[in-house]
């Protein structure tokens, strides 16, 4: 997958630096800072990690270490829309693997990847806690419960129809 060029704006950088300066002295500020940075940029490319390392006065390796430890942080950009299939136990027992396979098949990419046009990316996640509706998937945070491979593909297609 081709790496997209970093397209951060000065406004985003000001926002991030302001947040860090406000919080850097509170104990354990690294996680909230990374969460805020991902909220601003959508992901944590090297350029953003460098800003954080500089402002917090820590080595870049430390920022990178934390950013790569947690699955919530991503170093690559996501698609315009993100579909996330829950692979928690309750969903798995009810066939979540088949749903993920159907979506991967439909979009021609694997979980963790983004379509070449940058429109859709697929994630898998571990339990949204909506086990009563298993199997579950979300598109941009909108929850779709009691999915079947067929209904999941239909939901994906509906996003293309909107364009």
């Amino acid at each position, binding site marked *: 997958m081709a790496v997209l060029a970093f397209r951060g704006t000065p406004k985003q950088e000001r926002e991030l630096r302001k947040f860090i300066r406000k919080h850097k002295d509170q*104990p*354990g*500020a*690294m*996680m*909230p800072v*990374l*969460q805020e940075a991902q909220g601003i940029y959508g992901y944590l490319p090297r350029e953003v990690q460098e800003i954080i390392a500089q402002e917090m006065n820590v080595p870049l390796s430390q920022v990178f*270490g*934390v950013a790569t*430890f*947690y*699955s*919530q*942080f991503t170093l690559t950009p996501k698609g315009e829309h993100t579909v996330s299939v829950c*692979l*928690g*136990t*309750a969903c*798995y*027992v*009810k066939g979540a693997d088949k749903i993920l396979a159907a979506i991967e098949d439909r979009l021609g990419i694997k979980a963790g990847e983004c379509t070449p046009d940058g429109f859709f990316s697929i994630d898998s*996640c*571990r*339990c*949204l*806690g*909506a*086990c*009563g*509706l*298993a199997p*579950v998937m979300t598109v941009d945070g909108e*929850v779709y*419960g009691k999915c079947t491979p067929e209904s999941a593909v239909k939901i994906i297609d509906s996003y293309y129809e909107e364009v």
Partner: protein
Amino acid sequence: MTMTYEKLMQIKEKNRELVMVRRLVASKAEEMAKHTAYRKQILVCGGTGCTSSGSHKVCDALEKEIKAKGLTDVLIVKTGCFGLCALGPVVIVYPEGAFYSQTTPEGAKRIIDEHIIKGSICKDLLYPETVHEDGEILPLSQTNFYAKQMRIALRNCGVIDPENIEEYIALDGYAALHKVLTSMTQDQVIDVMLASGLRGRGGAGFPTGRKWAFCKATKSDIKYVCCNADEGDPGAFMDRSILEGDPHAVLEAMAIAGYTIGASQGYVYVRAEYPIAVERLKIAIKQAREYGLLGKDIFGTGFNFDIEIRLGAGAFVCGEETALMTSIEGKRGEPRPRPPFPAVEGLFKKPTVLNNVETYANVAQIIRKGAEWYSSIGTETSKGTKVFALGGKITNVGLVEVPMGTTLREIIEEIGGGIPNGKKFKAAQTGGPSGGCIPSVHIDTPIDYESLQRIGSMMGSGGLIIMDEDTCMVDIAKFYLEFTCEESCGKCSPCRIGTKRLLHMLDDITKGTATMEELDKIEELAAHMKVSCLCALGQTASNPVVSTLRYFREEYVEHIVDKRCAAKKCKDLLHYVIDPEKCKGCTLCSRNCPVGAISGKVKEPHHIDKNVCIKCGLCKQNCKFGAVYMD
């Protein structure tokens, strides 16, 4: 504002009747409702389950309709989880206690028009179990799902508005904190907790009172109280539901813990995957500060205590106590060796008490009602109740709270309503990736910490996944190993390499490329990991394999020797077969087969040579008679 006992009682009295309408039997509730400003109260579940099935749309529709009809004596309350998540969105109308399930915006309009305005309950929209054959409406407490439950940790969930502190106070909220601060010494609190027999609900079951006593005994200028809300077990949502439905119960208990050990700062470490829970917690903390129940000089006693939220970022290992604290410190969430235990050296190297959400949810009630009351519930060694997230192949998926000692059979057959589609019960899984499977021979085991351990599983945090005969136990073991392998933090090699090796061997078994020798190797490696891994993640990672191997060994053998998966889950062991009854001999499959594996004469049943077949599936796709299937 500074909170005083008088003010607390005033708030309680002001809201008491309004909230009690939701807790009484219909006849008494109707009487009570006359004393309030509202003729009807409509409770809408705002938990994650119901929100995901569209309860916000139902809520909007109700509000719109009420406004359109100009009803001023009808109150809408957005609550936490009622428990019956599979039937969401759930709506309850009080004082009748009419329980509407799977409500739609159109249904909401009918509830207002027919029930609220004309006074006739929409019986066809009610949860069918609450409608008796003769048309009488039963209270929720008499349905199979609720009758055997006992709600302590969940007592306010689905009853109060979690975004309104006054409703929590109306049901004796913060009375326990007042009692502790004004009339109990630190040691007296510890004595009550010890006598109650409350044990950690996160899974390990360490006595809460002893944990607090250790931390109190450590001398330090600064101490911390932490709440573990990093509910990582996939398939468990007890803690989330408590935070969404009754966040103040957790805050009050943390303040009590703070007083007991001598801490003035608390942290709640909560999963970022739970946005509704995080939002409600934020609101609850803000309101508690405004009411003087968090902050400086609480109840004028000179006791200071405040709470901050820290969001997790998706790492299962952070449910382990030392890893959780390392994560709050802003580092990679890796565990460290114990001792020193957190009670001596925890967060920021200071003595720390860490308890799980559900544990905290019991604390205030133990203080108010006494240790004797609490210890009268449950079994000899496990007191009180336990909340389970009931999921998988079960009719009533949802949240249940039962006294310790309830049998698995009662939970599955009575509360859970049995296995759907006439399938047979095969196994229940407790304890998630750290736990094990309970086969049907042990279905009458009373659930408590010790008896679950004896049969090779564990209490865990409360995920209870039911599996039917369509579930392949090797595949389930592999599923959990994939999880722990991915979530292993990599700090210690027994876990990092051990989980990977176990997974490889399981993978070979599901592909039919393993030998019987592998089973011995699995058991040997599992035994090593149990003693040599740094933290509980690695020490327990082999449990799903070991317990399935213990009870379902013949399934493993079947995979290895016969290369067969009876549940038809392991794809590599399945073969395409043509049903001679359905095959018309049209030759379409054999003409399309890229490797020439299909033979047969025109108008005669065809046959697939499984030694040649590459399982591309073209034959199944092309067959117009549905004669090709996998076996």
